[in-house]
């Protein structure tokens, strides 16, 4: 990448990093910032498979939930330092990604998507029923001694920047180019010697790892974990939505999508007169984007600037 292309993102990161230092009292915004970074991480990770490889998965909550519980259990039962559990949370998600990907990537297009809905829901039902391990329907309360909100904010920012960098690197790498090729025409790509199953699985594992680390940070922040929260279908859908809103398959689309989706979601959920329209907003948005601008907001911006 040319150095000038990096200038604007670097300035943005610097500005974001300064926020807790300049306004240490704005705890609400620092918390909102942290969670937005987590969702940016999720959206960008999802996009590696759903966007770059064109394999739309509705089952990412299975990674998030497994990783969240890995951190929660290591931390509360075995007294691990929460930060040290994060790589393991990522690895746990990778294991799930392999378990899901090895059979499911044999399926093409919509069949893969449907299978992932089944996988995601199966994990949630299992988690609800393994109450010895997960606390079942009452969830698990975790230790309360957590770092400051600014610590979370900066960790979230580091994570988000890392995942965006990896995503950007992917686009120019053999891996990313292979994924683009198989998205456009899998048969043609394979006839040129591309092992599409291997490429999909590598991307799946890579993206699951970041989802897992984000999930670990997320539960440490809330000090509480519940199967319906971390394995919820709405989480999987959220990742799809963020990508679709911003622009599937682009580098910055999911970042933009997450930066819009998460704060708006929080705003809607916190206003009693807006909560009733929660799903209508997302449903309507989804319909409008698919019908009028499949490229998402980024596609819209490009269309406007080209004129």
């Amino acid at each position, binding site marked *: 990448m040319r150095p000038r292309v990096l200038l604007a993102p670097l300035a943005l990161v610097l500005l974001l990093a300064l926020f807790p230092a300049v306004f240490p009292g704005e705890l609400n915004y620092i918390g909102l910032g942290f969670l937005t970074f987590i969702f940016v991480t999720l959206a960008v990770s999802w996009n590696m498979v759903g966007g770059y490889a064109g394999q739309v998965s509705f089952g990412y909550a299975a990674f998030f939930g497994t990783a969240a519980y890995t951190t929660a259990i290591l931390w509360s039962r075995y007294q691990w330092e929460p930060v040290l559990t994060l790589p393991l949370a990522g690895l746990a998600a990778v294991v799930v990604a392999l378990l899901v990907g090895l059979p499911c990537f044999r399926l093409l297009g919509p069949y893969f998507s*449907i299978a992932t809905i*089944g996988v995601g829901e199966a994990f949630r039902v299992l988690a609800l029923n393994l109450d010895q391990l997960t606390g079942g329907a009452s969830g698990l309360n975790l230790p309360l001694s957590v770092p400051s909100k600014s610590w979370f904010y900066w960790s979230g920012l580091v994570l988000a920047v890392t995942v965006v960098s990896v995503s950007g690197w992917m686009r120019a790498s053999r891996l990313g180019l292979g994924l683009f090729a198989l998205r456009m025409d899998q048969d043609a790509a394979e006839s040129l010697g591309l092992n599409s199953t291997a490429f999909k699985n590598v991307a799946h594992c890579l993206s699951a790892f970041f989802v897992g680390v984000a999930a670990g940070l997320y539960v440490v922040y809330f000090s509480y974990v519940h199967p319906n929260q971390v394995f919820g279908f709405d989480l999987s859908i959220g990742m799809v939505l963020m990508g679709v809103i911003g622009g599937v398959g682009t580098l910055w689309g999911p970042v933009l999508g997450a930066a819009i989706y998460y704060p708006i979601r929080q705003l809607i959920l916190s206003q009693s007169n807006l909560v*009733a*329209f929660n799903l209508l907003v997302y449903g309507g948005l989804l*319909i409008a984007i698919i019908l009028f601008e499949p490229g998402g907001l980024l596609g819209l911006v490009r269309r406007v600037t080209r004129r």
Partner: protein
Amino acid sequence: MYEPSAIAGLVITAVLTAGLYALMSFGLALVYGVMKIINLAHAGTMMLSAFVVLSLNRALHLDPILGAVISAALFFGLGMLLYRVAVRRVVNAPPIASLLLLFGVWLCAQNAAYLIWGSEDQSIVTVYTYSTIDLGDVKIAVTRLIPFGVSLLALAGLSWFLRATDLGKAIRAVSQNAMAARLVGIRSERVATIAFGLGSALSAFAGGLLTLLFSFNPDFGGTFQLKSFSIIVLGGLESFTGVALGAVVLATAESFSILIPGWRGSLINLLAFSLLVAALVLLPGGIASLLERRGKSE
């Protein structure tokens, strides 16, 4: 080890459930067959239809079965409208576009139901809700028997429609080969509109009948949608007999799951999800293809 009457009871439950499952899944299979898209709004249609039946029951004391018929007619129209307005535009787009579009429709349907009927669990109690028919040691709930009979009737009618009428034949022609159908002069766009309407009507009819058996709220339908997926995938996505077979497999698995040691009722949905993934991965053509292959090799 197990009483014969208990096993008989499980078999009867499985058969009765299978009838309803087949009806509920056939709408999805029909839409998939004609336009190769997966109708994620299926759950929303079932749920809205359940509420329509509820309102008809509350306001006019209409029996849920009659209500389901009216609701099916209503959703036949709404389904065609939805196809003309939106679905038509994504039929030839990458499959994910139709999935996301119809998912959006489902979300809107859920939200509409929240706004109109609220989020509480609702149920319909009729005069026969608690009555049973005794067959020796086995008791059969009337609320299971009626949907079964009605489903069989509806499926028989549908089967006749697809085999004997011109429109039905056109629908089957488009599912087999859309291009060839167009070449022989079938107006595939019109067929697709009607098929989508018919698919929605079937979902709505099934949703209406489900009110006899289950309580429901705006989240209702998601599980049944996944079950329908498993059934049509098991059945091979387009085949009429395949859907029936898939419904029998799932219903039997669910009914007999209580014999598994350490099983809990709350795990029952796991069966549908696992069958879905297993069928997709191991048996991509469904049970029907297995039978066909067997038939051909003989």
